[in-house]
């Protein structure tokens, strides 16, 4: 196992010193190495935002597309070539704001992809506006009286929609985050891993210390197959649980596609069956 397999060497990283993204990057590289994934077999899809820059910083195929649109892209890549390992990695604004509709329907669709969301409860790249997950009362240059909106609860939503894997980690704990990334990638089906991540520049409320005192790990008494228990945990507010909330194994989108019923070949290897096409054309001559 080569832990340097994913290193990009000396590169210019655009994140602020102390950013939680660094910890997630390290955890992810370790997880990928431990899972013995080859960079050429890995595709990372991201949107736009500070978190979405992540795939530039480790070795992989990547598709750094549009803000909010990573999930449809990731879904299609996995569908077009199910042999690839597909990770969708972006931030809370990208996934839960601009991409909200895609988030809902990706969960329903259940492609076998891993959805890692860097959740720092603020917009970093656009300099500090509220994000869908910002807590009520959080003040910004725009939300001057403090955030009024009810915060978006991605875990509760995902559990409600029957997501096949729902978990939350905290970037301050690289070892546990790495373990959860490994489990999310190994899981067959759509896996949501929301990762609490402090923004040292624009979020002075949800700091490393705040997350540390505010979170705890679910223990073995939690049954992740119990949807209502998982929901109850997802709505806990006094203390925020970390760990695997919910598991709901079910067939994946790719398994269900009729295009793979007759052949397992990825789409790029296929050519159209011209004999069948000629028959289709001929069927228009009469009956």
């Amino acid at each position, binding site marked *: 196992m080569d832990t340097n397999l994913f290193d990009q060497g000396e590169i210019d990283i655009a994140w602020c010193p102390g950013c939680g993204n660094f910890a997630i990057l390290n955890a992810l590289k370790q997880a990928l190495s431990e899972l013995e994934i080859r960079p050429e077999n890995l*595709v990372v899809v991201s949107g736009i935002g500070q978190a979405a820059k992540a795939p530039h910083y480790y070795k992989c195929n*990547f598709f*750094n597309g549009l803000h909010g649109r990573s999930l*449809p892209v990731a879904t*299609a890549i996995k569908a*077009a070539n199910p042999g690839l390992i597909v990770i969708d990695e972006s931030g809370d604004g990208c996934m839960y704001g601009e991409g909200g509709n895609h988030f809902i329907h990706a969960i329903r669709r259940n492609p076998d992809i891993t959805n890692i969301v860097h959740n720092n409860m603020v917009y970093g790249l656009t300099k500090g506006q509220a994000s869908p997950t910002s807590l009520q009362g959080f003040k910004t240059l725009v939300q001057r009286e403090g955030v009024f909106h009810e915060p978006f609860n991605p875990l509760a939503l995902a559990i409600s929609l029957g997501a096949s894997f729902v978990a939350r980690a905290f970037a301050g704990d690289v070892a546990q985050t790495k373990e959860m990334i490994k489990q999310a990638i190994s899981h067959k089906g759509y896996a949501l891993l929301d990762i609490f991540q402090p923004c040292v520049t624009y979020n002075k409320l949800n700091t490393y210390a705040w997350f540390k005192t505010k979170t705890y790990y679910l223990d073995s008494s939690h049954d992740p197959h119990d949807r209502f228990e998982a929901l109850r945990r997802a709505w806990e507010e006094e203390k925020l649980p970390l760990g695997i909330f919910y598991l709901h194994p079910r067939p994946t989108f790719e398994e269900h596609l009729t295009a793979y019923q007759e052949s397992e070949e990825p789409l790029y290897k296929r050519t159209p069956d011209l004999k069948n096409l000629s028959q289709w054309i001929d069927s228009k001559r009469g009956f």
Partner: protein
Amino acid sequence: MKDNWVFKRHEDVSIVLCGEAGQGIQTVEHILMQTLKLSGYHVFSSEEYMSRIRGGSNSTLVSVSSKRISAPVDRIDFLIPFSPGAIRHVQKRISPGTVLLGEKNIYEKEYRGGRAIDIPLSQIASEVGGPIYSNTIAIAMLAGLFKVNRDILDQYLRHHFSGKEEAIVQKNLEAARRGYGVSEELLQNGKIQIDLKRNQDIKNEILMDGVEALAMGAVAGGCNFLSFYPMSPSTAVAVLLAERSKEFGIIVEQAEDEISAMNMVIGAWYAGARGLASTSGGGFALMVEGLSLAGMIESPLVVHIGQRPGPATGLPTRTEQGDLLFALCSGHGEFPRIILAPGMIEDCFYLTQKAFNLADQYQVPVFILTDQYLLESHYNIPSLDPVRFPLQKHVVETKQGYKRYQLTGTGLSPRGIPGFGKGLVVLDSDEHDEEGHITEDLDMRTTMVHKRLKKLDLLMKDAIIPDLIGPEDYEILIIGWGSTYHIIKEALERLGRQDTAFLHFKQVYPLHPNTVDYLQKAKKKMIVENNGTGQFARLIRMQTGFDMDQKILKYNGLPFSVEELEVQLKSVVD
């Protein structure tokens, strides 16, 4: 109404079926078209209908001819009304020559200006077994007037009702017998005399609409991924490919919205699939962000826009050529593209097939602009050749150190895909370097802009030359694009002028450089477009500097008819 008239035709007959949504007019059209074609007639049909599932008034034109026919006429020879509202709906098209074949209680109140023969369809139907059989009686009556062999109709009915129990099949056959009886009476008393030449070769021709040809063309072009959100009139393409998904190994996914559909299609191309985004103007509006992404990452892409009248929801089930400039200018930023506009059913097949090769070769978005009229018109054509444009795959196996945007001088970089080869395929919607990594090096920016825009030179060289129909030494040039091809052609044939030619464009952007030569030669240039502003005229001026002398435009939601275009052309060329 005086009864001493005789209806005679020996070239073509135009039948209009009119009634409410849900009355089965499409079935009548379908069976009639098939059996007439199998009897050796050329056939053409075109539908106009309201955006509703039941009620209202819809009409279908079925033209039967001894010559090839591929354009709609206003003239009604036989009017078959299925509901009282039908008469009012087609009132403007009723002429003294029109013969209404139908029930008195349906037409007596409002029918004026034409002839009528009372056919007690309901009564015959109830004798057969119920009102449901009146459609089959009408089909057989019309087929009988054209002396369609009884066996052909019976066989077709058996085929059509093959899922039903034998008793129902038998009743339909009985209904057909009764319908033939009606036609025999009409022919025997000499009131109706139809003498169209038949050609047995037509039997073996194919009969289809634009949608089917487009879907087949997609398969021929190697399309194996389609994502869409339902929207008339484009949905039918997805429905057909979904039906064939297993057979041809095509992934068809109904997305949550067109934004997702477009991003899925681009993602599929990235992974090596050949993806199609099929939509209409409003849906394409949502796809525009993704289109710009394809421009930046140099993704191949095929977009089908089945145009309908806008703005906004517009007239959902009608036709227009209103989205040409939208397609041309869509997407923020600057990037090259190709816009194809099929003029006929054959084009729906071949241009769609070609679109996938072009997209793959040049790594640009390729548009196929159709419209409701073209998609939903049926007529017979000799055949389609699935290998006319053999599949050309341009994906390369990557090596270590692969650079997705390697500078080559032509603007084209070898396109690798993840999982095929040792290299990594990296791309970014931000400006990027040769590897695909985000960059703010402004010299690199300039280099990359040049690289992307340079491809336009290649696209122009490879553009499809417009078709010239008519005399080479023309003085007057009529210009059209896309679905108006056959309508303009037939109107011009009727006009019969030796100084007038027709230049049809099936590629509307970029224009082939020869376009200028055609325009230069003309003393007078006129454009015919199914929109309100003459969008192609503006495009031509933008690309060539030439202005049109006259524009003939129609934008009420219907295609031009041959007669109205003939009249309008006559008034401007004289």
